[in-house]
């Protein structure tokens, strides 16, 4: 009888131990890069906690993947290289998928399609000689403006652009469409008389995804599955409604 108990105990241990290990998992924590001052996608709320469409989406994806995510603040200019070097496992930042970026990092499946918006003082058209265009360093808008030969004013965060506009340092700006939503509501733009145009040129419009370090191809698969789950069970739509006035596609 004692031998029987011993054998049973060993069998139970063999069955249960792998489960115990699995929960701690091979990677218990993921380092997730985010940017701030980029309403409504990622920003610090009045009470001091990090939120925004991308941040909340990343939180839901991590919950689905059953891993803990530590958010690390970076800038748009640095985040792609940081992911490429493996400092972040992935970045919860809206990045247009371009061939240049794809040489450095892996991308999740796209979770919406983005356009860019030109906003400028009345009558000022894209390409006008007297335009000084405010752009965020590291963005595709900045690359496009530089390629067009425009006179540009580079800032570090989206939130700095209204100040630049209000102070007159720039009389135009090129922004992603969703960030434009909060730009138009900024008090500095209230009665500025600035008008917008939607631009659809390739290079500043296209599919948007999260960047993933090339060292973790398995993470891309897991992120894509988590995105599918969130779209299917309504969590994606709930976050959409919390931050945006229409449904992303």
């Amino acid at each position, binding site marked *: 009888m004692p031998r029987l108990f011993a054998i049973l105990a060993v069998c139970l241990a063999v069955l249960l131990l792998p489960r115990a290990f699995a929960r701690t998992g091979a990677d218990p924590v993921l380092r997730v890069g985010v940017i701030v001052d980029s309403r409504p996608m990622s920003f610090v709320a009045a009470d001091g906690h990090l939120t925004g469409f991308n941040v909340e989406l990343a939180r839901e994806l991590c919950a689905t993947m059953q891993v803990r995510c530590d958010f690390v603040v970076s800038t748009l200019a640095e985040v792609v290289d940081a992911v490429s070097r493996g400092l972040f496992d992935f970045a919860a930042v809206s990045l247009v998928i371009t061939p240049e970026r794809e040489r450095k990092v892996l991308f999740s499946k796209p979770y919406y*399609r983005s*356009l860019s*918006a030109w906003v400028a003082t009345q009558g000022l058209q894209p390409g006008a000689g007297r335009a000084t265009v405010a752009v965020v360093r590291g963005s595709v808008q900045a690359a496009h403006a530089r390629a067009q030969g425009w006179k540009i004013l580079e800032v570090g965060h989206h939130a700095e652009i209204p100040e630049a506009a209000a102070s007159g340092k720039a009389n135009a700006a090129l922004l992603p*469409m969703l960030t*434009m*939503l909060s730009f*138009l*509501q900024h008090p500095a*733009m*209230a*009665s500025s008389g600035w008008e*917008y145009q*939607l631009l*659809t040129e390739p290079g500043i419009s296209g599919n948007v995804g999260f960047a993933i370090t090339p060292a973790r191809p398995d993470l891309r698969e897991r992120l894509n599955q988590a995105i599918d789950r969130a*779209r*299917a069970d309504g969590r994606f*739509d709930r976050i959409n409604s919390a931050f945006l*006035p*229409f*449904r*992303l*596609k």
Partner: protein
Amino acid sequence: MTPPPSGQRLRPAARVFGAVAAGFLLVLVGLMSWVAVDHYEARQTAISVTSRSLPQSLERLRLVRNLEALRIEGLRAVNGPTEESRRHARFVIDLIAGNPDVRQDPESAMLAGQIADFVRASVARAPGDPEVEREWDRLSRAIAIVADRVTADGMAGITADAERMEAQVRHGTYKLLAVVLIAVMAMLGFLVMIERVFIRPLARIDVALAALDGKPEPPSLPATRTREIASINQATLALHAAMRENERIRAGLEALATTDALTQLSNRRHFMAEAGPAVALAHRHRRAVTVAMADLDHFKRVNDEHGHAVGDAVLAQVGSVFRASLRATDLCCRYGGEEFAFLFPETSLADAHLLADRVRVAVEQLRFPSDTGPGPRVSLSIGIADASTLELEAALGLADEALYRAKRGGRNRVEG
């Protein structure tokens, strides 16, 4: 083992049942595959629902939400309190009009374009302009109609999948019922087969074995085409033949043990064994029973004058006479060399006297002609006694005394 009767083809049961079982399994596998087809298709439909129809429906619902957002932003673009709120609403309307799912639905794309144009045109108009109100009403209702149509589109795919799956499951259920029915019938057929091939023949063999004895009538065995049952039949017939042979031998041995070979009468031991119970039976039912002792007169002289061969012939003839003269119920034996004993059941002393005298006359009239001249002449002295109230030995003793008196009285007579 004796070989089977020629002209009959026998099948070993193992091969027959093996073939039947294999056939049944093949049919069953075929039927299960037939059922599995529906199950597989139902699974495919279920996968289609989760991977295709459901996501498509969700996309349609998101388009409906965007159409509603168009209405909300349209109102705000026309009636918003401040210029930047109206400008913000115009921007959102432009974004929605540029959204891929709006642009890919022709009605929605057209409507979104109309609203964007309307909103831009309304910038120039005064607030509260009735024409603006009328136009907005029309656009607002158009949004509702398109939204309803898109919702119905979204439901159609899932409804079609659900109906298809229901039909597949229903077909699968019918097929499964048919398969169960066929399987049950096959099982019943199998049981019937076992009953006919094994159970019933074995039952008849059991009955035949129970009744098996040495009588010549052969056992009643079942006709069969199964090798194993035929083997049992063969063995049973062989057993019956052996039992018959046994019986024949036993009867022969019994005859040898109870009969005097020369006269073919019972021997003394057998006579005493039979007579005892006969006398007891007569005593029990208070019936008359008589015994007699007989002796051939001057038999020694026959042997001396004519030889033992003639003497034997005489004894044999005398035995025949006794057997011919006596009734079926009478007992008779060769008691000694030329001495005989008799038991006459249901016979009074007077009747026994008559019967004994008849026997005496028959013996007296025996002739034994031969080539060498007239053969010997013999006679019989008989003593009878009533055994109705005596034990057998006592009665035979009395008969013996009567025989002695008959010898002394001149021989060839009946005394007692």
